[in-house]
């Protein structure tokens, strides 16, 4: 019974996501792996938004009604896809050597063994993440006192609008809680272990999307190698086993940015990539407060890319409008329910951050922090140590530095320069947030830095892949 209900909790978002993705991608050739990966994220993101909106309209949640609401979106999408002849899940693409996982035309046996070896290592990691998530109850601090407790409250009260739950939520976006509550509604019972199934599914989905996009440009071995490197980030795998918001934020932000990069790389040709990017970044706003600022950084980079892209024809202002406006519109539509609900806190919070950034002497006195130069040097030292000498990221930052030094010619040219800039801007964002704001104490006690840095780690590896590998080398 548990397996069946958990399967339903995974299958419904996947089907909903497939239906929506098929409308967005139309007849664009994409692999089943990519569509499946994207589908789960889109589906679960949309379901949590539906749950949140229903509660906003004072409608209590229950599984039959949720299923009805989901069907209202899913069935017309599937019908339209069928009518227009869009492929929903192109199983045939698995047989295409260019897109498939296996690579029978690999020139040497050793390559095939290596590929299988890498695939085996990735599968081991995925299995481990699933096992660790599902076998243990909720144990970690933030999950216990916020995300999973809110999930339990939503399930038992059928709404998040109870005073106790609202106190818990404060100004923190509730995606993680609604995602767990969705599993509880599907199984009609509160099972804290099964509630965490969402996170390993997101982990698998991230690997699938990452692999599929690398595979479009690089050989099977290269794509698998870099996917393996992503799966081998210890901090990423660890967070995928917990019920924290940091991994889902990483998931939505990195996929959103990945498609933004692909959109820029393909000379702004495929609007579907822009739509997917905006969808994921918008959902990221519903996962964590950081999602709002991260989406802002991406929007800035997109604007810069529009302005400086020489291959775009026509007036710059028109280009800017035709690309940036739809992007921002989707972002706003997706995140509107949360932004509307939280607009008071958001405005106050942003004002507060802006004031604090300007009034550094006051911050030093009020929060009893060291003066800015001392904070700056302390932060530099901590960042350096944590990035290069800890076990969180293995050698990811070293690889990034190496790629910047050795492949500077490629990195400092469009389109890769935009991805590189995104990584650096995110790093700057983390640095500013932890040095110039009261959160400095979290930098000292080690509470926050790695978790905030996690969001961009898939992008760091993606940047290294595009810098170090030769595109369109298919063997």
């Amino acid at each position: 019974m548990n397996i069946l209900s958990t399967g339903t909790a995974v299958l419904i978002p996947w089907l909903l996501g497939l239906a929506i993705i098929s409308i967005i991608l139309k007849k664009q050739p994409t692999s089943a792996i990519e569509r499946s990966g994207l589908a789960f994220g889109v589906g679960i993101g949309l379901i949590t938004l539906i749950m949140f909106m229903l509660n906003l309209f004072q409608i209590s949640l229950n599984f039959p009604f949720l299923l009805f609401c989901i069907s209202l979106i899913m069935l017309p999408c599937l019908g339209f896809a069928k009518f227009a002849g869009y492929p929903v899940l192109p199983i045939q693409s698995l047989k295409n050597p260019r897109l498939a996982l296996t690579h029978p035309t690999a020139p040497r046996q050793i390559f095939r063994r290596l590929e299988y070896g890498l695939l085996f290592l990735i599968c081991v990691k995925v299995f481990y993440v699933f096992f660790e998530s599902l076998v243990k109850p909720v144990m970690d601090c933030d999950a216990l006192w916020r995300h999973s407790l809110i999930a339990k409250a939503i399930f038992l009260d059928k709404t998040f609008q109870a005073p106790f739950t609202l106190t818990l939520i404060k100004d923190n976006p509730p995606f993680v809680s609604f995602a767990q509550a969705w599993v509880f509604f599907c199984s009609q019972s509160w099972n804290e272990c099964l509630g965490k199934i969402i996170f390993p599914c997101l982990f698998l989905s991230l690997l699938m999307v990452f692999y599929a996009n690398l595979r479009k440009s690089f050989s099977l071995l290269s794509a698998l190698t870099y996917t393996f490197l992503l799966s081998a980030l210890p901090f990423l795998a660890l967070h995928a086993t917990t019920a924290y918001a940091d991994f889902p934020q990483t998931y939505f932000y990195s996929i959103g940015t990945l498609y933004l990069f692909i959109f820029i790389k393909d000379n702004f040709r495929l609007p579907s990539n822009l739509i997917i990017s905006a969808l994921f970044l918008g959902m990221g706003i519903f996962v964590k407060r950081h999602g709002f600022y991260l989406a802002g950084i991406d929007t800035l980079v997109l604007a810069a890319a529009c302005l400086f892209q020489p291959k775009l024809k026509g007036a710059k202002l028109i280009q800017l409008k035709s690309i940036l406006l739809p992007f921002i519109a989707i972002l706003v539509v997706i995140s509107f329910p949360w932004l509307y609900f939280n607009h008071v806190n958001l405005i106050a919070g942003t004002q507060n951050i802006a004031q604090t950034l300007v009034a550094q002497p006051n911050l030093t006195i009020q929060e009893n922090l060291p003066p800015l130069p001392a904070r700056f040097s302390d932060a530099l030292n901590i960042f350096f140590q944590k990035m290069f000498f800890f076990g969180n990221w293995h050698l990811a930052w070293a690889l990034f530095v190496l790629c910047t030094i050795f492949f500077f010619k490629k990195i400092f040219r469009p389109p890769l320069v935009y991805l590189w800039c995104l990584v650096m801007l995110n790093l700057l964002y983390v640095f500013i947030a932890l040095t110039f704001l009261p959160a400095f104490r979290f930098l000292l006690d080690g509470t926050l830095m790695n978790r905030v840095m996690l969001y961009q780690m898939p992008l760091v590896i993606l940047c290294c892949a595009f810098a170090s590998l030769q595109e369109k080398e298919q063997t």
Partner: protein
Amino acid sequence: MKHSLSWRSAWLTGLICWLLLGAPSAFCSTPFDYQFDSGTNVVTWSSPDPKVNLKIEGPYLALTSNASFPYIISPPLLCLADEYDTLIIRMKCSKKDTATIFWATDFDQQFNANKLVNFDLGSANRFHTYYINLRQQHPAWTSKILRLALSPFAGPGKAEIDYIQLEEENLFTNLQSGWAEFWGPKGRKTIGSTINVIKSTDFMGRPINVYVYAALLLVFIFSLAKLLQPLFTKPLKPIPKSHIKPKFSIKDWEAVGSKVGGCLIFFWILLELCSTYTYWNNFRADWQDYSGKSLEQKAAVSAGPDFYAFIQFCKSRLPKNGVDIGLIFPGELGSLDLKGRYYLYPNRLPENCALDKNTPYVLVYRLNNSAYSSNPNYYLFAKRSEDQYILKRKIK
């Protein structure tokens, strides 16, 4: 003759000094070598805990424990940390666990968490020789060492110690210590209550990344030198102009980068294999603790069986729709409020268990005389044991 007498007196003085000062180590080859093959120096290692039984069994010092944290303490050492830095222990334990070494120095004479090194015991019921370079593994191994303490495992169990030696480091012991350190407990667990940091595994007191970077630097220098070599060597035959390559192109630079990057990925895979060992340990531990158990049993493992039973007791007694509650417990039990809040919902426990005078129900866990039990506004509502009960506010 005069000369002979002075030689003899000096010899006698030396013997008396040796008998007086060096007697405890009379059966040792160095001042800090405890062999335990006679009853002579068993008294020099002791345990202040009556639940730890120490005795000589054959050639070994046998430790049998019923204590939660058994440990034995060395005799006074008074050695310089710089000179004696490597501890060698040959020991057999009845279970696979993590052992801990503590020490007291002239600056900090207590055994405490600021000065400890952990090491893995390896397989149970087999003798292992452990090499621990304490100076490399902990910065607090400095100045003068007064005493050592060894805790072989936690909880009940038995350890048989063949010998304990404190020596000066050498290449062999350093490599042994480094290897054990690399596979040891440091870097295997996340640190911080909110899953913040995974430390790197260390080798000879430094993060393994340091060695990887050093190796990458060597690869870079070697690749660059190989690339630049033709520029500095004169060819034997003159090369036609059409065959002369540009001196140093970007492609050459990128080729060096590819080699260094390839090596980095190779090291990354090795590090991942090391991490896989951690995952394997986690997997085995969690399989043992959680697999095949019901949700209730898993929650009991996670929250502690007694506390979870108390939670279940409270849930069965409190109104089903949920009420505002308070929870009082001794501070040393840690963050029980987190789990209490989580498992007690729909009963609402405020953040940090903040109680006010109107809280209708107060749950008391492991406290005999809390402020509320003597509060005239509250009465005993339900009782699980003497120190676990529910108080209810009187309705005026």
